[in-house]
């Protein structure tokens, strides 16, 4: 009995500790405007959720330095969306307990679906900055918007780069190109890969020689895949990797001496993440990844107002993280900035006034950070051709901007990729 009483006391103490550490949520002061931030802060997606949160915080500070939103200081109520049920539940909490009228987040396709549903039932504005599920705005949700292009946009840009920039330099025609599709099997990988496949085939007649999906959390050896693809002799490997799988594939391709003309990826994870460079150093040379702009980016190519914001953004990121903006920062940051522009224009968070303001925004490419423009369609999606995306390439341990050429001082190298030990 004594042990049980002790255990009970320990329990109470632990819970009390929890209360103490967490403290109570701050009350909204009258000069503040609060929005909800929903990101995965625990669980397998935590590494990117954290970066998005950082991006939001950095731009929030920038916004507050410039007078805040609607004359008030912008503050956050943050919630952890670790799985779809939690995403919906926390969205509810942000709306009812924190009283937010706008929720932004959530980075992952499996979370944005549930969260936006929950927001819709309260008629709260849902402002998505990153998830790429193409069905997000096809559900008829009037108050759900997305600032980033969806997976079809990624696939579109990748094939654009391959067909217009790489293929001519191989002295080939697009319909002679043999392309192998490899991808991790989450909704992100599937979405991008399927749209790339479609465009490659329908518009350019490229020859698809392989389609392989795998689970990025459990794959621990890509040699079988490498060997299989090696036999098929593709010209291009279109590989959407998520984490360690990218490193494994690249390293093991080298070990097996699997040669191809180029590898193209899309997104801030896998080949597009800092970890890839950290893991491989100069051995990463040559890989292409579709991303927000990196080093080499010609800020001068932007419009004057875009230049000012981009400079300020980069400085702020440097100050807070000591480095250049990473994909997560750029997506979250630009998403929040566009939100500010909308709120400035609408002057209110009333859903109808908000919607009008969203639809009325029409800024050309080069107007805000990342060189983006703004133009929302009536299903709440920011247009593909305004959300300028860039192709980056790993050169000497860094991801640098190489395309479109008018936006960068640097150029793509190693087209086609030479032997593995010749990529200096």
């Amino acid at each position, binding site marked *: 009995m004594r*042990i049980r009483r002790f255990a009970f006391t320990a329990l109470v103490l632990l819970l009390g500790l929890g209360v103490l550490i967490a403290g109570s949520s701050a009350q909204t002061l009258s000069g503040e405007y609060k929005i909800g931030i929903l990101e995965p802060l*625990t669980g397998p997606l935590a590494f990117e959720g954290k970066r998005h949160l950082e991006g939001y915080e950095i731009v929030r500070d920038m916004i507050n330095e410039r007078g805040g939103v609607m004359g008030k200081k912008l503050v956050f109520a943050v919630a952890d969306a*670790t799985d*779809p049920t939690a995403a919906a539940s926390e969205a509810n909490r942000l*709306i009812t307990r924190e009283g937010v009228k706008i929720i932004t987040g959530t980075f992952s396709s499996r979370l944005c679906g549930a969260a936006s*549903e929950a927001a819709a039932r309260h008629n709260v504005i849902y402002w998505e900055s990153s998830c790429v599920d193409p069905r997000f705005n096809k559900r008829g949700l009037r108050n759900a918007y997305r600032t980033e292009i969806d997976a079809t946009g990624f696939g579109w840009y990748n094939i654009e780069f391959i067909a217009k920039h790489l293929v001519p330099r191989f002295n080939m025609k697009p319909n002679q190109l043999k392309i192998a599709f490899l991808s991790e099997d*989450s*909704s992100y990988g599937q979405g991008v890969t399927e749209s790339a496949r479609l465009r490659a085939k329908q518009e350019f007649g490229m020859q698809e020689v392989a389609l392989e999906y795998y689970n990025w959390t459990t794959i621990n050896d890509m040699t079988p895949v490498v060997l299989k693809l090696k036999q098929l002799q593709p010209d291009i490997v279109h590989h959407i990797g998520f984490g360690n799988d990218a490193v494994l594939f690249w390293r093991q391709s080298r070990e097996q001496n699997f040669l191809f003309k180029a590898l193209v990826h899309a997104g801030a994870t896998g080949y597009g993440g800092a970890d890839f460079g950290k893991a491989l150093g100069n051995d990463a040379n040559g890989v292409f990844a579709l991303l927000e702009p990196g080093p080499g980016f010609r800020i001068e190519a932007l419009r004057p107002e875009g230049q000012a914001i981009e400079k300020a953004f980069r400085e702020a990121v440097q100050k807070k993280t000591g480095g250049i903006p990473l994909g997560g920062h750029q997506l979250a940051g630009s998403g929040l900035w566009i939100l500010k522009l909308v709120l400035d224009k609408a002057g209110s968070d009333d859903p109808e006034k908000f919607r009008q303001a969203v639809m009325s925004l029409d800024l050309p490419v080069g107007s805000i950070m990342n060189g983006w423009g703004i133009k929302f369609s009536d299903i709440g999606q920011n247009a593909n051709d305004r959300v300028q995306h860039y192709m980056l390439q790993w050169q000497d341990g860094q991801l640098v901007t190489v395309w479109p050429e008018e936006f960068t001082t640097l150029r793509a190298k190693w087209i086609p990729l030479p032997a593995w030990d010749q990529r200096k």
Partner: protein
Amino acid sequence: MLGLLAHRRGAVIFFGVAALVPVVVRDAFFLDSLVLILLWGSLSAAWNVAGGYAGQVSIGHAAFFGIGAYSAALMVTRFGRNPWLGMLLGVALSLLAGLVIGFLSNRLRGPYFALSTIAFSQVLLIAVSRWRGFTAGAEGIPVPFRPGFATLGLGHVAWVYMALGVAVLYYLVAVYLERSRLGLQLAGVREDEDAAEAIGVASRRLKVVAVAASAGLTSVCGSLWAQYVGFVDPAYVFSVDLSVRFALNTIIGGTGTALGPYLGSMLITTVETYLRAQFSGLKTGFTGIYLILYGAVLIIVVRFFPEGLAGVAHRWRATRLSRARAVGAAGSV
């Protein structure tokens, strides 16, 4: 009937309070939490039929949950029918799957059985993730919200009563199991299968029936969940985490008791939601602390109160009773 009510004081209080909450409280987050408590509670009660009453501890019940969720979602998005039809289909499929698992339960005991159930749920997870053409693969299925009862497009208050209805129904199923001959036979199988066989109980068949029933009940809740949250993806609905949740709620609350799953669900869901809300606002990177606390709390509860909350309450009541009797006896001497 009144005798039943008096005997089941705890249940009356629990469900009665749940029924009154929406009348008094309008806060949507509170109502949402209540729906989750009742829904997870019902799922745990469904698990309890196999795990508690029949003694077949499975950690793969998410397989049935996922079947129910996908059946409802696909019926709506792919075939344009209403989710209730999907629920029926889900139940049919889960009963089949339950029969398979039940068969396994006759060949395997203890941890072997548990591991086989995990493998089963993971096979489903992978298969559904790959079957892109039909299930939309890993991308999952967004479930449209169309207001109305037929489409399960309900408001928060309506959902509370929906979940409550299911919870009370499952509770009554458990009560029936406790008092009926079938239930007693099941208890016999649970306690000592060989002895039960010896006195003529068709233990093998009973176990299969119990597991299959448990599967069907789980599936119904899976279909409801799909309509409630609005997004079905294989990595979540077939996850081991969910399977463990159903079992954990019951164990914390009291395995093999009728109210246990609901008590456990109430405790765990509340603690989890509360901790998560409190900790989300912390400096970036420290949010995970709430899960450390959560894990510690779970370890302590499972370790020191293995008979669960219901068991503790029972013991406490028994101690009071015996003390009262002792006092009474002493007084009468």
